[in-house]
């Protein structure tokens, strides 16, 4: 690798060519403050906080985007640099709604961190602020422009998702980040993926908070309140309590939920196994009967809305399977209530998801097979964290507990749903065995793991060579679909997850600050925990889940049966973008 020598504050470092001053300074042991910089997503040098002096240039330079060159001399801590950073910080603060105490991001705010680091005690340049109404019409996302510092991280991530519904509007002091024509985010083709929330350094974008609805339900003696948790929540929830990224807290989570007062604690992993049975059968059926191919997965509600809006031609390719959240909800309001003699009107289903789009999904009118909504309230991982904190539970020290039986049992194939490629891997584990009658030599299909944008795999199953592709992030999905559309690529089966990295880094997961993201990629760290969880499971193939088998025997008969279709499948319609 070609390297260059750079002098940073008198320390000579040798760094790869093409590095930025920010990279070089880090190697030299200097942490240059940043604000708008979000590695790989937003590298625009806009906030002017990471300014440094570069010998030979006139003005101060943004170190996050300034490429190093051989012999470059950089100074990061001169009076001019300190003054400029501080003035810019004061200016940003002068136009920021500084109600930190009541902000969702209090103590988890990158602007707050900077104010503390620079000891900003009074703001010399107070002046006018424009007051904007808060946009809370979306079931998933709330935008508060009064807190926005115009770093553009949300804009960049939305564009990289291939959605691009928010951007700078107007200019100068009146610049605001919002959808076109002053619309609500609910009124544009936002897919509710919530990646903008993860990108926001402050509290300008947040999830729609539904915690109060859950507290109310838990208070209601007439309601039987049950909860389900998605695979990715268990590898991230701990971060809300200061635990190391990638810590598995499955048992503590079940214990906490029980202590919060839920009548039953079930696992969405159960219905993930069920999804494999239904979707795997659907895939084989389509291959055998000349149905529409490629079959595309349907677990990710962000992806579904994306497809309905931008690629309606592909709607027939999407599996008719409901997402695991909705499947479990439908079963809770049918199989479960029948079995336990409950009134479905009085069963309240809460799901804890790594996802903001799930809030939108739960509100879809077609997802109420029993006449009641499959799922009543969706909480994100962050909201559950808040409930646990509010209840005063010492989460890291809770004992490990199990999920409740019947709808709480799951295999390793289910838990990997939480990482990109997981649904594909789980499906192939089962489909291979159905087709060939014997298990795969190695059930860990490495080709579909990892954070490459689009992954491909070919698996020989008897006479059948199954061609599969995995895309995560709708931007990558878009690129993949274009290739399928043009005929450049042909597949049998495609997995799409709306969020880059899959559910482990879904829009409802704990927020990782930009600085931390530079060192540790949560997509990889949390996925590793997911695969550990899989490895520790005694059963690792969905069709081996005994409770799923029992469900078919007792209630659904067989995958894709009439009853299964009624409860577990759905349909899609093209949506107008505007």
């Amino acid at each position, binding site marked *: 690798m070609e390297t260059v020598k750079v002098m940073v504050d008198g320390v000579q470092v040798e760094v790869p060519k093409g590095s930025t001053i920010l990279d070089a300074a880090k190697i030299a042991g200097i942490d240059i403050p940043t604000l708008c910089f979000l590695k790989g997503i937003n590298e625009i040098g806009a906030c*002017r906080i990471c300014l440094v002096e570069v010998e030979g240039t006139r*003005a101060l*330079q943004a170190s996050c985007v*300034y490429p190093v060159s051989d012999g470059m001399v950089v100074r990061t801590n001169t009076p001019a640099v300190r003054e400029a950073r501080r*003035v810019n910080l004061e200016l940003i603060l002068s136009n920021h709604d500084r109600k930190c105490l009541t902000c969702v991001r209090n103590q988890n705010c990158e602007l707050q961190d900077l104010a503390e680091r620079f000891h900003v005690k009074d703001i010399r*340049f107070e002046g006018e602020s424009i007051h904007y109404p808060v946009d809370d019409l979306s079931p998933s996302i709330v935008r508060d422009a009064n807190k926005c510092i115009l770093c*553009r991280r949300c804009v960049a991530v939305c564009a990289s998702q291939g959605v691009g519904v928010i951007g700078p509007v107007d200019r100068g002091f009146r610049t605001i980040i919002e959808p076109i024509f002053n619309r609500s985010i609910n009124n544009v083709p936002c897919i509710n993926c919530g990646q903008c929330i993860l990108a926001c350094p402050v509290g300008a974008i947040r999830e729609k908070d539904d915690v109060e609805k859950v507290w109310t339900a838990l208070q209601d003696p007439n309601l039987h309140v049950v909860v389900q948790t998605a695979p990715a929540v268990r590898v991230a929830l701990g971060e809300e309590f200061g635990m190391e990224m990638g810590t598995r807290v499955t048992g503590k989570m079940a214990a906490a939920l029980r202590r919060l007062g839920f009548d039953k604690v079930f696992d969405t992993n159960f219905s993930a196994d069920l999804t494999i049975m239904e979707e795997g059968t659907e895939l084989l059926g389509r291959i055998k009967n000349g149905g529409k191919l490629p079959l595309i997965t349907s677990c990710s509600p962000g992806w579904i809305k994306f497809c309905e809006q931008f690629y309606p031609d592909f709607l027939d390719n999407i599996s008719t399977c409901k997402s695991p959240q909705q499947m479990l909800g439908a079963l809770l309001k049918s199989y479960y209530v029948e079995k336990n003699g409950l009134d479905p009107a009085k069963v309240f289903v809460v799901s804890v998801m790594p996802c903001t789009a799930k809030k939108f999904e739960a509100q879809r009118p077609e997802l109420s097979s029993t006449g009641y909504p499959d799922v009543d309230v969706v909480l994100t991982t962050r909201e559950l964290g808040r409930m646990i904190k509010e209840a005063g539970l010492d989460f890291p020290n809770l004992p490990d507990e199990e999920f409740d039986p019947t709808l709480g049992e799951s295999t390793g194939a289910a838990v990997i749903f939480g990482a990109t490629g997981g649904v594909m891997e789980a499906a192939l584990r089962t489909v291979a065995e159905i087709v060939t009658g014997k298990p795969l030599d190695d059930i860990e299909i490495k080709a579909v793991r990892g954070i490459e944008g689009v992954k491909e795999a070919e698996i020989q199953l008897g006479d059948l060579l199954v061609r599969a592709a995995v895309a995560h992030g709708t931007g990558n999905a878009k690129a993949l679909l274009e290739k399928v559309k043009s005929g450049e690529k042909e597949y049998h089966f495609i997995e799409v997850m709306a969020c880059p990295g899959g559910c482990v880094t879904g829009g409802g997961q704990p927020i990782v600050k930009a600085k931390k993201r530079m060192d540790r990629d949560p997509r990889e760290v949390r996925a590793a925990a997911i695969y550990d969880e899989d490895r520790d499971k005694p059963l690792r193939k969905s069709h081996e889940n005994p409770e799923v088998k029992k469900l078919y025997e007792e209630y659904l008969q067989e995958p894709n049966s009439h009853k299964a279709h009624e409860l577990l499948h759905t349909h899609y319609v093209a949506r107008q973008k505007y």
Partner: protein
Amino acid sequence: MELYRSHVLVCEGTGCHCSGSADVIQKLKEELEKHQLENEIKIVSTGCFGLCEIGPIVIVYPEGAFYSGVKSDDVPEIVSEHLLKGRIVKRLLYHDHVTEAGIAKSLDEVEFYKKQMRVTLRNCGVINPEKIEEYIAFDGYRALGKVLTEMTPVEVVEIMKASGLRGRGGAGFPTGRKWEFAHNAPGDKKYVCCNADEGDPGAFMDRSILEGDPHSVLEAMAIAGYAIGADQGYIYVRAEYPIAVKRLTIAVAQARNLGLLGKNIFSTGFNFDIELRLGAGAFVCGEETALMSSIEGSRGEPRPRPPFPALKGVFGKPTLLNNVETYANIPQIILKGPEWFASIGTEKSKGTKVFALGGKINNTGLVEIAMGTTLREIVYDIGGGIPGGKKFKAAQTGGPSGGCISAENLDMPIDYDSLTEIGSMMGSGGLIVMDEDNCMVDIARFFLEFTVDESCGKCPPCRIGTKRMLEILERITQGKGKEGDLENLETLAKNIKASALCGLGQTAPNPVLSTLRYFRDEYNAHVYDKKCPAGVCHALLQYTIVKDLCTGCTLCARECPVGAISGERKQPFTIDQDKCIKCGVCFEKCRFNAIEKK
């Protein structure tokens, strides 16, 4: 080709167009037909002559009679007297401010033009910009022919370097070096762009060139394309310049038609074509990276450099960007040689510069002068001095990015470096003259208001910083200035200059910094004494009645809209300062000069 004994040139630049030159042309046609002169006398629509304030302008050749302020009613007289009988219509001739007599003049004798040196404007007002043949007749496209048939791209770059030409858009970067970077940049696909997004308030030289001599820009861009290895050019022109857009469109079509744009130009295998891109009127799109972002179809916002456009410009490809006036010099440099060009101007600033004269000056308009001309020559000799014999106070160059030149620097030769040294800048060449009645704090506020309005909003120093500066200035001009305001202004100005993302942000504080430097007393008077010495800032004025002069006529009291004036008939009246809204009605109405404004 018909031969005419006389050519009547009518300016159809934007200024004259607005003052009615289209009607004049129509009337001329009618009158010529009436007198059966249409085969003897030719009407030529031209670009700007530069003296826009007194348009429409009509010039009759071969005499060179220079008529100004011509209305269509004047046309019959011009035709029957001048064109038919050869008697120049003296009452319509341009009256010179410099020579007292204001006598009849031909073009060459007008002081306004005498001290000018028209290089980039040489064809403006001379040729019909909608006829490529006329451009060719005035040596057009010979430079391109010469370059393509006799020179290597490297030789062209060397000529540009030897000429010493510097960018006329603002910063004055050496054009030859820019071409060299673009020439050396690796890449199969490169672009040549022309910045015609002229946005400085009051500056309109680029518009004039595009309206009066569009082919000079096209030719220069093709030369640049050859020099750097590009086959595609973009002209980014503001949509608010409809005539320039129209003429450019015609020019591109004509050049394509003659094969001067397109494939295999002059049978040399060189291909080059040009497309127009219309800007939507954002000032920031004059900044090169914002301009390129806009060409690509995105929001016009600057991005940090490096990478510089020469390496990564439009669509990520190596791109050469020069402004209109820079390009207009280039065919001349090729034809007359770099030595010729380098012989004009000062040591480090070669050639000429066009200035748009405005403000408190008699000859408002466009002037092209050799670099190194003094401000005094521009203001007094070419500009005809300040109306009403008022005293020169300062001149603002470089528009909202520049600063002011105070009277002490009137005799300094103007070039890039001298202007930068005194805290101003060349900018695109706006030159606004201010006299003793201008308040410098108010001027700074005015320019800052412009920048605040035009900031793209990408970086906080510009987006919030300039706004905060403006708020302070507004307070000061409203008499609410307080201790610490000037220091905060300076802190903000210094840091915005050092830390804004693009050139526009970095230069936005200049008007404040330079007025603070030369006119700090005026700031102090506003902040501490709550006085506006120039009598401009309303809130700081006080109207009082001079007892000895007041006759008690009651007129002021009756006119005062807020009833702030009272008194007894035939006795001196008084103004209640708490009630007074400083509207100035009393001052205007008093017939005895008994009201004092301070």
